[in-house]
């Protein structure tokens, strides 16, 4: 009963949807038609971006309302959200993950580290940026990017 009361008192926490982000939809995403399954790959980040991604899917930002959903297997996924500089140990797994995804598929690099290794550039354990390992279709700059920006990127993919 306590939970019921809480639900009643809380009501809707999702913020009103911001206007559609500008920037054209990546060509591969044309076929998705408002439904995108997302698989996150942490290629060696400091987990800052992970926290923000979690934020993007929480009730407040609620990325799900635009048709994006996190899934457990790359076979189910259309988009790989890759974070962090690709460490040597994660390079091969990242390639395999992307290879496991059925066509058409997109790779979204989230955070400065994913785009240009950011802080960790030239680290001995760093293989390189995500684009050095797998083709990247979309980037979300920021260290870490704000949930709103991640959501905006996902909206460009879902087109909603």
């Amino acid at each position, binding site marked *: 009963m306590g939970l019921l009361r809480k639900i009643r008192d809380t009501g809707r926490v999702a913020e009103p949807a911001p206007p559609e982000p500008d920037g054209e939809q990546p060509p591969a995403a044309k076929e998705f038609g*408002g439904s995108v399954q997302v698989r996150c790959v942490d290629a060696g980040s400091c987990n800052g971006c992970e926290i923000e991604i979690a934020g993007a899917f929480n009730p407040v930002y609620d990325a*799900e*309302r635009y048709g994006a959903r996190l899934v*457990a297997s790359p076979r189910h996924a259309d988009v790989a959200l890759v974070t962090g500089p690709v460490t040597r140990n994660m390079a091969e797994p990242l390639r395999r993950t992307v290879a496991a995804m059925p066509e*058409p598929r997109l790779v979204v690099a989230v955070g400065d580290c994913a785009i240009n290794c950011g802080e960790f550039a030239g680290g001995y354990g760093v293989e390189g940026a995500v684009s050095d390992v797998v083709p990247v279709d979309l980037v979300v700059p920021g260290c870490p990017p704000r949930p709103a920006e991640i959501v905006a990127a996902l909206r460009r993919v879902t087109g909603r």
Partner: protein
Amino acid sequence: MNTVGYAAIVLQVGAVVAGAPLLTGLMRQTRARLEGRAGAGVLQPWRDVRKLLRKEPITPIGTGPAFRWAPPLLVATSLVLAVLVPLVSTDTPVRARADLILVVSLLALGTLALALAGLDTGTAFGGMGASREMTIAALVEPTILVAVFALSIPAGSTNLPVIVAGAADQPARLTSPAGLLAIAALAVAVLAESGRLPVDNPSTHLELTMVHEAMVLEYAGPDLALVEFGAQLRLAVLLGLLASLFAPWGIATGASLTAVLLALLLVVLKVTVLGMALAAAEVFWAKLRLFRVPELLAGSFLLALLAVTASYFLGTEGGAR
């Protein structure tokens, strides 16, 4: 009669096929609203299916016909169920074939096909999912069949339309203890069969807690679309079955088209309400530990058994004739 009967079947199958994803969408939406989210909208499951159909099918190495044919078989069994189960009319051309035991075993057939597919991949998760699914399926079986027993006593038959029609013209059967116990037992069984909370969590991302999801980790594209669609069909048919078993009011028993249409409207309404109630309940439930599930099923089995004994000892009808 026949034309109306066929019309009823066509309408029913059409409604189930079109409505199953919508039902899932509605349940997700209900959950989302209760959690303070905006929700992806009721149409989202259809969007998912469309998108998955556009994607590339994948056959992993070392898999064979079982993996290839399980998804279509799952959907096929669900479709046959959608034809058999009397949702809008008890007076259809297939009414002689709609046997409750047959319905139960067709459900089991779909489960079994998917379990074999999970083993066919040879991955640890596939095997794990298959093993858990079959364990639960095996334990659900007694509950369901004893509940079937309880339902068939007053009707004197395991034929679904007979049971439903009988319940429709004397509602006293439903409010008797036997009826209520049978409802409770069958409801638990339906939760287990359709892989919902608290038996299985359909939206989990953690492989180790998966039951149904773990078997389908390897499917992609259209195959995955079929698997998800099949699961949605099963849920819709099962909720519809519950609705017409325990709230049969308004179901068409005659051969008038208007009655059929009205019944269609009503059944859609009932299933909607049931679905929303289930979704709301799921907000409050947590998934049971796998090895607590037997307790739940033992409980529901007990309820079913009590239903049988009650309908024999308390009930004036049934029992000694």
